[in-house]
């Protein structure tokens, strides 16, 4: 869980930094989107690096889901008779919602790829016009899409709030002080990601990007 999770978090940060380029205008953003396809050239042919990264990410996602499924099945087997009286888990909301939150994030990722990678569900849907695709996607008339993005990104935030510190613990973090630092860092990193990702659809909604 920890290894694959860390790879995915690193990708999320790279992805967020790329997204923020939208605030530098249409030309910069489209140029950045085009550059993504040319990373590694001329050593690698066009788009090769992109496909290698996609392959790596897919493996990480599959590994992450596999490990989560194994844990969920083990948990179910470990308690065949449920408690008649069970108050909410005392740990954080984030820790409690890791499994279903993860499912929501997976559904979101599928929608997101169909929306802004393959452009199948995108209202503009022209390859190479990354800026227009985003601007049309979050147009005020499509508020329900924006809402879905907001809910999903917040779900990602909760997932990482527990996930990042849990990964650090799995890798051997073992002091009380370190635990506080790890928990606070996980919260801070999750907040940065949520704010960074939500700034783009909000900017489109209020007309800063159009």
């Amino acid at each position, binding site marked *: *869980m920890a290894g694959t999770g860390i790879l995915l978090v690193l990708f999320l940060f790279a992805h967020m930094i790329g997204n923020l380029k939208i605030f530098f205008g249409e030309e910069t953003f489209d140029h950045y989107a085009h550059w993504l396809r040319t990373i590694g050239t001329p050593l690698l042919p066009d788009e090769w690096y992109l496909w290698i990264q996609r392959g790596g990410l897919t493996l990480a996602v599959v590994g992450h889901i596999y490990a989560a499924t*194994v*844990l969920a099945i*083990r*948990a179910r*087997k*470990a*308690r*065949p*008779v*449920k*408690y*008649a*009286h*069970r*108050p909410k*888990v*005392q*740990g954080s909301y984030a*820790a*409690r919602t*890791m499994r279903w939150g993860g499912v929501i994030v997976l559904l979101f990722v599928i929608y997101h790829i169909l929306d802004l990678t393959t452009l199948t569900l995108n209202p503009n849907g022209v390859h190479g016009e990354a800026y227009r695709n985003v601007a049309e996607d979050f147009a005020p008339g499509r508020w329900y899409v924006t809402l879905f993005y907001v809910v999903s990104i917040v779900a990602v935030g909760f997932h990482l709030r*527990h996930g990042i*510190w*849990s990964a650090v*613990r*799995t*890798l*051997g*973090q*073992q*002091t*009380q002080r*370190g*635990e506080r630092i790890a928990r606070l860092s996980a919260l801070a990193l999750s907040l940065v990601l949520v704010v960074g990702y939500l700034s783009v659809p909000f900017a489109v909604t209020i007309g800063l990007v159009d």
Partner: protein
Amino acid sequence: MDIKVRVWRQPSADEAGKMVTYGVKDISPDASFLEMLDVLNESLILEGDDPIAFDHDCREGICGACSMVIDGVAHGPEKATTTCQLHMRHFSDGDVIDVEPWRAAAFPVIKDLVVDRTAFDKIIQAGGYITAPTGTAPDAHATPVPKKDADLAFEAATCIGCGACVAACPNGSSMLFTAAKVAHLGLMPQGQPERDTRVIDMLQAQDDAGFGGCTNMGECSQVCPKGIPLHLIGRLNSDYRKALRNSN
């Protein structure tokens, strides 16, 4: 005070159980939770019913025998308290209190509230020991131990092996128990020879016993009557990684 208890009654391991409600009248607020059950059992015996079976031994919070989930919380609502040290003054007149056994596949119910905790013994057998010369006890200062290590080892050693961590864990994992034993022995100079095999073998025994996996939820530490800290699980993870590296 008058209360009602809904207790898990299960005649034997092979029969199905259910929650049964009993009224308990005129209980002193100074009675412990187990004394309240003693009073209830006396009245059940007088009525010709089968008394409620529950584990108990020292009744002073150090043996780890008592094992009840009270209103969904292992050892009840008081922090760092075993069921035997929980007093009725923490409840109110007229309360309906749910009492259930530890629920885990690795801890099968023997009868009513009594569960079989042999799985913990199996984990201990797998590595909860040190190799020491027998004979007369060595001088207390023969092997110096840094104060910091001694303190942490002692904190880990306060684990009484009651199993509340497993009962509370949403995954039914015994990681806090195993982590406490691994830290307790692994911090001491006497525990070094088996340090690597200990963590590997104890985790294997834990998996074989049918406990769930740890996802760092932290419920275990919240209900632990001895307040075993959650960060010991990080120490176990670190020891495990090092042991795997050394074994290759």
